[in-house]
């Protein structure tokens, strides 16, 4: 057991040559929570996810994921976590069912139980009529749905979602939001969500961390961040914390 804490990091750092992608990240994410990780492009969100999911070694610092030390228990961590990567690496010549079967097999699952689960997930995501078509003919939103299904297929305790709704239409986004909510509430699944969409984070997440230039610059529940920033919503609070006030006059200066 891991004392109700899904992720715990201590002074986590990642450097790529001269670039300091993650700086002294110290963080705690509770079990069953929906943690929103916000930040500008290149702030270090994806690098953090890659480190926490065991795909990348940190330059320094320690972390535990679901109570397991990251440095020594990578395989065990992978078995109980799911990752939706930022860039979709789908197999274009497989159908949705075949791809999910492949992911299931990589996680050591197969047979009727897996097939039934695949059918039901694809039905929830509205892909049942296209489930036997090759993925090469899918739109980017449909591919994203397949990837989301692949991430939760093996019932992970902790799910890393990197920009989960970036390519989805509003109704598909709504389904994903509900899916996250119900999985967190009913099964205690923890979600670590990287996103640029503040409205999505405001709707879904109960805790927010804002990272800028590799450093965690804000952490807390959504309401608390809005309140301490004296902002009207999360987007406004984000802009105040990270910077990026819009100068309306400058917007026409290029003409």
């Amino acid at each position, binding site marked *: 057991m891991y004392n109700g804490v899904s992720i715990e990091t201590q002074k986590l750092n990642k450097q790529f040559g001269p670039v300091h992608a993650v700086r002294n990240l110290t963080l705690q994410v509770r079990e069953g929570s929906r943690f929103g990780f916000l930040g500008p492009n290149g702030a270090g969100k994806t690098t953090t996810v890659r480190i926490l999911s065991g795909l990348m*070694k940190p330059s320094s610092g320690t972390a535990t994921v679901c109570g397991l030390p990251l440095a020594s228990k990578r395989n065990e961590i*992978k078995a109980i976590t799911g990752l939706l990567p930022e860039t979709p690496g789908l197999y274009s*010549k497989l159908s949705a069912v*075949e791809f999910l079967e*492949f992911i299931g*097999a990589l996680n050591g699952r*197969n047979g009727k139980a897996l097939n039934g689960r695949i059918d039901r997930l694809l039905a929830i995501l509205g892909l049942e009529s296209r489930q036997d*078509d*090759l993925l*090469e003919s899918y739109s980017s939103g449909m591919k994203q749905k397949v990837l989301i299904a692949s991430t939760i297929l093996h019932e992970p305790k902790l799910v890393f979602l990197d920009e989960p709704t970036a390519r989805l239409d509003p109704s598909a986004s709504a389904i994903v939001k509900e899916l996250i909510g119900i999985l967190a509430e009913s099964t205690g699944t923890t979600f670590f969500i990287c996103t640029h969409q503040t409205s999505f984070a405001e709707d879904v997440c109960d805790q927010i961390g804002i990272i800028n230039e590799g450093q965690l610059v804000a952490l807390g529940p959504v309401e608390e961040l809005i309140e301490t920033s004296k902002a009207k919503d999360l987007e406004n609070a984000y802009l105040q914390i990270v910077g990026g006030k819009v100068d309306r006059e400058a917007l026409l200066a290029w003409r």
Partner: protein
Amino acid sequence: MASKWYSIAKAEYQVSTSSMRKSRTRNMILLLAFGLVWAIFLAPFMIGTITGLILPFEFLQILLVTILPGFMRAVMFFLWMMILIIPLSRALQEIKIGQWEILLSNDVRTRDILIGSFLGKLPIYGLLVLYLAPPFFALFFLAFEVTLIGQILIYLTLFIAVLSTIWLSNLITVAIQAKLGESPRGKDIANGVGILLAIVSIIPMYGIMFFSLQFSAILGLNVFLIFPFTWPADVISWITILFSQIGLTSNHILIFQQTLQFDINISTTLLSLFAAVCIIIGLASADRIFTYNIGARTEQITTIKGENVILRGIRKVASGSFGTLLVTCLKDFFRKASNLSRIAYGIILAIVLPFIMTQMILIVGRDSGGVDMMMVVMISGISMALIGSFAFSGTAFMESKDQLWIIQSTPSGTTRYVKARLIAGFLIALPLCIIPALAITIIITGTLATLGFLLIYGYIIICGAIMFSTGVTALNPYYEDTKSPEHQMNVMVTTMGVEFTILAPIMISLFGDILGLPFWDIIRSIAGSAGMPFAFAIIGMVALLIVGGGALLIGTRRLAQPEV
């Protein structure tokens, strides 16, 4: 306002010279200036000095005067291949319809795209020719003592030939790209076509080499005369002869006339007509055949039906999640046109190479009893290894680095994935070794025992090559597509590594013999003279299994490690 074709040409030029973007203009001027100095002074001087050290010039002169027409045709043929097929093959592996969308949404006519992309390619290909052509021509300039006007006319002819070829290459590339469109399916088809083009360039080459006499007899003329690369070659030969200062007599010229058949006027007319027709076809067809349209072919939806009997059988034998992985790997491999093209390429090479080799042995008459078994075994091993290394490396193992995250994020996913890919490869290798083994047996009129040996030897060689190529790709899976340097490095290392490992025992024995080390004698004392080819084959095969296994082990471990 700049013309639209000019803007496209500029962008194309900037892309092709991006590696020197910080001082592009200065570098290009320097390259051009040095190229001219190279072409006019350095290349003739260097070639003259080097050849003078190897052979007495008088002897060389006689040789060069004799081989001029044939040599020039061969040079132009390779130049034609280089600037027609290679850009075409490369371009097909990177469909750029996304750029087309941007251009056409800015109201650019397809004719502008065609002209712009053509002109943009000229500087780099022009420089390539400026650096590569002079060493070939310099020899003849020296041997024939060609006047300066003659040299200028030769480079002018070469320039026209290069321009028309690049135009033709550009025209075909743009047309195919427009028809295939940008979709995963279109990209896969284009990739497959790109690889097949390499076969298209190999087959005629060997066809011309070995069957030109037969074709000529049927057609009633020198078969080379119908190929466009012959016309500029013959014009260049004629200019070399007519502007020579070595005092060629009318008898000499008559001999050249008999070899070349067409006189300078006909060859020049044919070259000019070819260039004109290419340009006219391009301009006339631009706005018709290049209408941007992602056709039904690329947007076609393929729905998967039930699994065939082989896949069902595999599932029964290998039940559990690993069986599922294995079946998925087989499905993924066989559904890609590019993989099938690679297999076709490998098999064709595996048949063509032994065929050429036996023809050469017969022509040279090295082995009066039939063929030299050592050469046959060597070439069979090389050919079979090509199938394994070429068809299973790079994208055949993993489409791109994006897939890595998904596979690596599962527990022991990479190891299980590599194992599944490897066993899938071993299964695919079973039918692959049959065709070349049969073909080689027929070519060398071998016995059933020869067929049996080639089947077992070929299968193990292909499996060794698959292990090696999988290991190398697993060591460096960080590529975006087949054009990326990482991917090309993988394919090169795989092909060279496999071939070197197979040939290493023979090479080590030969060098050992020179150095006084008795490897050769030891093998002969064990296997006997007649058994030596087979002994070397078996040693090479074992070496490949060891090296391939090592590469696989290291690659799999590296792939399973988190990124540093």
